[in-house]
């Protein structure tokens, strides 16, 4: 019980405070988790990670600051919905949507766990991976909010930026002779500087700030009101769950791809139907937030089945488990119903987190009582701190801040366009290139 509550508490903090990721949290808690048996470590991690996805949406929606990169869609839609007086409803509906995603994916996995190993194994077949990344890249270019030619240009810019510092097998990485570039451009600096912060500042400049302040006086929306909103957007939630479930398996991207890709798909669908609301779209927000919750559990599958971590924080989970003498494999996962227990706690954690997010939003909306100029300054400071703290042990803080300042300048210049295409292309390009290189090596060399 204490373990479950601790995981909820840590997950809440990780989600609410931009800059603290799951990895940093696991590093800080390492000595405390070390004596625990494998099942407890997995429960702790699953509940903490799940909760952080719930509470991360609040900070993103309320103040437009992304606690995790997976909350980037919420930084765009959230403040706009708040400005329309729909903030509390957005938070509660998103929380319920996220819980739906949690239940759907956990149920599917619980029902199919005996057969899931073959599926997860085959998912990493290079032919499937190549098709997946090429399709995602095409959808990003086709479905972005800008004109096709601008999307294409942005995708090329994103891919070019991703090439800096990219470690290949045949040639030295492009660094322009500056060693800091050997790690590439820091994603957090690019994401916050080029996209999140300029978008939020633009939203603040467009909306009536007095309306935002009046939103802070509203109470949390009722269960009935929220359930009606969920019912209206159930198709978006189901689409988000499905996309999130598969995207969560993509190494290195997991929930980031889950939320951002489902957001783009939902935006595309709604624009085709001419129902997308430029002033904050609830369906897109729900789809993205549902996707990251369903992606969170599937992202743990390769770790639990093959003992292969696919994100940094899972490396620490694996280390903690193996240090205790347990070799992680499908057999250990199925023995004694280990997976079933983890999945049940994940659902329980999701249920409690739904209420934490609901009530937590009420407190955070008070932030709009702060005068606009102070709030903007606060946002810039919080964003700068996030960038500064990103990979703080890499000796790269000054470089990260310089990248952030540069990206912010470009983000401001391009603020009237959808720069998220650059971000997605930046994220996807290395995976696409490597899978294409392997495709060529396997079939044509």
């Amino acid at each position, binding site marked *: 019980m204490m373990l479950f509550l601790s995981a909820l508490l840590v997950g809440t903090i990780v989600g609410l405070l931009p800059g603290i990721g799951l*990895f940093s949290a696991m*590093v800080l808690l*390492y000595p405390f988790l070390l004596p625990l048996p494998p099942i407890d470590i997995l429960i702790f991690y699953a509940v903490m990670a799940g909760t952080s996805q719930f509470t991360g949406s609040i900070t993103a929606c309320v103040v437009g600051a992304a606690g995790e990169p997976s909350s980037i869609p919420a930084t765009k839609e959230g403040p706009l919905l708040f400005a329309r007086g729909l903030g509390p409803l957005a938070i509660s509906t998103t929380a319920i949507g996220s819980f739906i995603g949690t239940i759907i994916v956990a149920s599917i996995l619980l029902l199919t766990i005996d057969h899931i190993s073959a599926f997860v*194994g*085959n*998912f*990493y*077949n*290079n032919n*499937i991976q190549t098709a997946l990344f090429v399709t995602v890249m095409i959808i990003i270019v086709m479905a972005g909010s800008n004109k096709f030619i601008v999307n294409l240009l942005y995708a090329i810019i994103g891919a070019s930026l991703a090439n800096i*510092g990219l*470690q290949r*097998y045949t040639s*030295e*990485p492009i*660094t322009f002779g500056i*060693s*800091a570039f*050997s*790690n590439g451009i820091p994603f957090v600096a690019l994401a916050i500087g080029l996209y999140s912060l300029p978008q939020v500042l633009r939203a603040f400049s467009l909306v009536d700030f007095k309306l935002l302040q009046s939103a802070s006086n509203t109470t949390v929306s009722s269960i009935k009101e929220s359930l009606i909103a969920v019912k209206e957007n159930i198709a978006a939630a189901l689409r988000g769950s499905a996309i999130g479930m598969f995207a969560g398996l993509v*190494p290195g991207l997991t929930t980031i791809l889950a939320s951002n890709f489902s957001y783009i798909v939902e935006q595309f669908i709604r624009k085709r139907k001419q129902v997308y609301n430029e002033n904050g779209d609830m369906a897109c927000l729900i789809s993205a937030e549902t996707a990251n919750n369903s992606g969170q559990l599937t992202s743990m599958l*390769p770790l639990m089945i*093959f*003992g*292969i*971590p*696919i994100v*940094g924080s899972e*490396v620490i989970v694996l*280390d903690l488990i*193996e*240090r205790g003498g347990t*070799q992680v*494999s*499908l*057999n250990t996962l199925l023995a004694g119903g280990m997976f079933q227990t983890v999945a049940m706690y994940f659902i329980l954690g999701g249920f409690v987190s739904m209420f934490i997010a609901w009530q937590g939003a009420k407190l955070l909306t008070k932030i709009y009582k702060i005068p606009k100029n102070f709030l903007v300054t606060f946002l810039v400071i919080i964003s700068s701190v996030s960038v500064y703290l990103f*990979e703080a*042990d*890499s*000796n*790269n803080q000054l470089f990260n801040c310089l990248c952030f300042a540069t990206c912010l300048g470009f983000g401001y210049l391009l603020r009237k366009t959808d720069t998220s295409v650059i971000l997605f292309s930046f994220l996807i390009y290395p995976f696409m290139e*490597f899978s294409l*290189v*392997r495709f060529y*090596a*396997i079939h044509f*060399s």
Partner: protein
Amino acid sequence: MKTLLLTLLLCLVNATSFAIDKSVEIIVPTKTSGTGYDIAVELKPLLEKRGYTVNLVMSGTCTKAQSDFYSTSKQSTLLLFNAWSALPECDKSIPTNASWVANLVTGPAMICGKPGKDNLGIIKRKEVVTIASTSVYAPSIVKSLNPNFKYVPYPESGGTVRGFTAGDTEFIITNMIRSTKLMKDGIADCFVVTGREAINGVQPATKLFPQWKYNLLELNLALMQRNMPRDISEQFTKDIRELLVTPEWRAFADRNGYTINQTMTSDQYNNSLLLWGRD
């Protein structure tokens, strides 16, 4: 009284000047995952137990780590991988007798194929087959065993395992920890290990492939230091070598399929780089 105070003051000054500065920076050429990270987080608490203040710098790449190492004014150590020191962009981190601290762990490579197949025969017959590998094992290394290997590159060892399991390739070359897991799960038949000794029933490459240029290939992970005065450097080296024979370090090595060769010299380490020579 004055004499007593003066004596006390002198003692204090002496004690301060003779106290060893036990702060040390460990510069790691990987991000917060992978072998380098594992080694660094294992090493840190063991050094702290010996009174050191340790700051880990996760530089991310060997080029950045080299740059951090040679630009810092702090007492600093660099985690070396012999496989990387052989790369042209990382060839500045070659230890000398003076900068050498110790070799921390050594690990061989294993080659595995699909269970139930004549994997050894396939390679000896030099059939056209695919092999999954990370950039650590360059194409020249695997192709010198079988020129008809189709080299399929992955960014990290976890990727090679995922690709091999999903049916991308027929063979995989990887480290002990990955191959042991593949064998235990019945996913792979690991049939050759680099070196002179059989490990877990797997035959050594010197016996199966005596003509293979890289049959003694081993990954060495070592430490070199900079900015340490001689007395501190000597004490640090002594502490590290003592640490390598502790039960904690042995348990870590066993868990990850490494062996420990704490007596390795800088010359022996530098000779091991030749094995990783690239085209």
